[in-house]
């Protein structure tokens, strides 16, 4: 039937005979008799959407997406074009992973639960914190959830949430929405040469602060150098120190637990997903003290009736389907399958590969900055800091013009100021570096 030009849903199986038998069983003449929709709200029109064969639909989507230009992306700021090994696609696409629901029946979901438990364990190792949930939507929403966590767990009252002034607009704005229903207010603290201005931060912190947020690396790709101090400032005010990062950076940079971070958020899909127009995976880890206030799903270990180890979603009384308006978050469907992919990619790399990938982010960024700095009309890096993966370059020409000209030559970089562009090496093939430098040389004139 799939091959012939049948009408109706190609995924609904009834034959005519079956439909007749079913209608008889439910004692109606037609399917329409099962719909008691009042006439005034009945829809008697059409959507005007044509049905298509599978082949036609594929061709349609290919043709639409074909309008996206082929560019070598030297873009970063939270999303990186690391190569995702084929293994990840093939295994994550197994329909048991792809098509199952949340593990409400753990007895037939052990495989997924174990994979998510392994994902949590990966984050625990990377952050040094004791608890990681098995996913939020992305870095921005994870940051928003961290703020509501801070409000719940902080012993004294308070309403100020401090974030760096360079915070990405998507994260800042999402955070604002998350705290809109609370008493919290988001304030920024200044940065100095891209990193937290520690003195200014010290001035800003008082007892009314519930949370201080910093990122490592920063949005400009620089390595934060005063994280312990940020932590001390936060803790001195009895506020939470929330740190933003990602699994690759965490493989090399200071371990969050070692600098006093109480919560780590970020986008974990830097591993496991290709750049997907911003689709992400919210990383969320925290200290054990906050266990009963964690948002999102947690997989824990238990035993089955034969005393064998078994995995299960746990501490569900935190969640919306049980706790309703007193839940720790409204999240239900999350990013479990992306977490699976990230865990797979990390396992593929292994600790050697993870550390190596992070190190190359440093050395390749340095090398490219050096080369751009040699170009007349360009200074790179702008910030006198260590860099991971990306850096800011100053151009004599207007940044927008430079970026637009680069795009014509097949390269994409960020505009981050009137005369500043941001360039990222993560995932950029070695053989595209020379052509990029050449193109940059041409357009920077």
């Amino acid at each position, binding site marked *: 039937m799939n091959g012939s030009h049948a009408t109706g849903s190609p995924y609904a199986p009834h034959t005519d005979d079956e439909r007749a038998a079913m209608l008889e069983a439910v004692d109606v003449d037609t399917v329409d008799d099962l719909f008691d929709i009042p006439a005034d709200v009945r829809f008697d029109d059409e959507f005007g959407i044509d049905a298509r064969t599978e082949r036609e639909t594929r061709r349609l989507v290919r043709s639409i997406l074909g309008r996206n230009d082929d560019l070598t992306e030297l873009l970063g700021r939270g999303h990186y074009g690391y190569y995702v090994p084929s293994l990840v696609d093939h*295994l994550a696409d197994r329909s048991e992973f792809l098509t199952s629901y949340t593990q409400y029946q753990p*007895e037939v979901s052990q495989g997924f639960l174990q994979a998510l438990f392994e994902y*949590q364990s990966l984050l625990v*190792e990377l952050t040094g914190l004791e608890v990681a949930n098995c996913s939020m939507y992305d870095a921005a929403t994870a940051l928003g959830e961290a703020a509501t966590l801070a409000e719940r767990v902080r012993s004294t009252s308070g309403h100020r949430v401090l974030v760096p002034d360079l915070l990405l607009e998507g994260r800042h704005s999402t955070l604002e929405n998350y705290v809109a229903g609370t008493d919290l207010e988001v304030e920024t603290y200044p940065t100095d040469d891209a990193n937290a201005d520690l003195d200014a931060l010290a001035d800003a912190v008082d007892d009314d602060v519930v949370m201080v947020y910093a990122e490592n690396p920063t949005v400009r790709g620089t390595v934060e150098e005063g994280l312990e101090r940020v932590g001390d400032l936060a803790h001195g005010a009895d506020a939470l120190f929330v740190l933003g990062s990602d699994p690759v950076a965490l493989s090399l940079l200071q371990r969050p637990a070692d600098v006093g971070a109480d919560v780590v958020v970020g986008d974990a899909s830097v591993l496991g997903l290709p750049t997907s*127009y911003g689709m992400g995976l919210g990383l969320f880890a925290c200290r054990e003290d906050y266990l009963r206030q964690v948002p999102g799903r947690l997989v824990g270990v238990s035993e089955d009736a034969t005393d064998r180890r078994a995995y299960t979603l746990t501490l569900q009384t935190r969640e919306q389907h049980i706790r309703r308006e007193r839940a720790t978050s409204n999240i239900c469907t999350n990013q479990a399958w992306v977490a699976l992919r990230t865990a797979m990619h990390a396992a593929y790399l292994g600790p050697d590969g993870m550390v190596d990938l992070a190190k190359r982010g440093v050395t390749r960024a340095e090398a490219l900055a050096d080369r751009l700095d040699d170009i007349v009309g360009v200074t790179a890096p702008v910030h006198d800091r260590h860099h991971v993966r990306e850096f800011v370059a100053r151009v004599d020409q207007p940044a927008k013009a430079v970026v637009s000209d680069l795009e014509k030559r097949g390269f*994409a970089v960020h505009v981050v100021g009137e005369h500043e562009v941001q360039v990222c090496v993560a995932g950029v093939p070695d053989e595209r570096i020379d052509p990029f430098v050449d193109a940059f040389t041409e357009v920077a004139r």
Partner: protein
Amino acid sequence: QYEPLLSEKDQTTVEIGDSDESPLPDDLTRDSLELPGLSEPELARHYTRLSQMIYGIDSGPYPLGSCTMKYNPKFTEDVAALPKAAVHPDRSETSVQGSLDLMYRLQDYLGRIGGMDAVTLQPPAGAAGEFVGIRVAAAYHEHNGEDHRDEVIVPESAHGTNFATAALGGYDVVSLPSDEGGRVDLEALEAALSENTAALMLTNPNTLGLFERDISEIAEMVHDVGGLLYYDGANLNALLGRARPGDMGFDVMHYNVHKTFATPHGGGGPGAGPVGVVDELAPFLPAPRVRETEDDSETASSEPTYELFDPDHTIGKVHGYQGNWLVLVKAFAYIARLGDEGLLDASAKAVLNANYLASQISYDVPYEPFYHEFVASAGDQDAADVAKRMLDYGVHPPTTKWPEIVPEALMTEPTEVESKKTLDRLAAAFDAVAEEDDETLEAAPERTTARRIDQTSAARSPRLSWHELADDE
């Protein structure tokens, strides 16, 4: 059969802090990293084995009421895997016309299907869509100088996310009881509504599968006090092509694309929760949205171009970028494949299947006429035990113990993808379990990878990473 954890297969430690090869000063790096280091063949086996311990939609029927577990067409994976779908979110608009084009078309499709004037695709899941709805409502009321409205009304039998979302939005939740027939109690609604009402959140058909026949009156009542009517799209599959929230008087709604448009649930996500609104609310939608570029050139014959724009009174963002883009691609492909005919057929067969299945089982179904799902009662049996025992018959059980209006609820939604034979097999499983004694049920499941799992002890002493297993096992 037991698959060891990756950490039980290997643990390799990489030293960093004191290594000469580190490109950073020691005080800016961690000391070491300890993780499993396995070969590709070993990993392939690990994850293949794990996959074998999972029941998916390709394993058999999955009649989870309110979850709408449909078959996920394979080809939608192919289109989402197209190389051109993989673009960075900070690309210039001119260089991602394909992505914008697809989003524009999907906004349009969803608007038509829901009867809504404007759609945002940004919310990355249904609950995030609810949150957008509540935030839009708040912004609307505030814009109109009505920030005193601090209550959101939610029916008792609503999804838990409705309550949690309203609370996250800072609202007091007013719970609304059902009437005897299982629908909104109009008198109770009248009592609940006030000048403090920001919105009423409603699902239709409701969680009992019943159509809220008084919807026009409900809408009028809510609008009369200046409130907004929110549609929870979880059950939209029942109405495709037959009724539209916009026509029923709803002002704002979310779509669950993994429920209605067959995108895979991925064991917990990613989903997508686009939100549609009436014109009046469009200025408050999240930024950015996609629109056609006004044509100032003379080549009218060329393809339209698209751009991002911020609605005038936008609430800002609820996600770092454009939400779960790859999921949106799959949803678009599904709708483009089915078209009008397919969507109409889906709701027909979804409702027929639910009614047929209910007619074939011995458990009582107290509320009717239902649409795409029904809530049976396990009677004297414990519904959770019934579910565990159904696993032994090789089928996935329904959602249990909810909504609470039905004692020992078995909330069952077969969807349109099941054949009569599969429904008969499912009915046989229900009936076999219905005949069994409590002892058998409590001992279930017996034929699954893991036997009954002790949830209590998992929560009492949580062990949430392999680091906590090393000592005690």
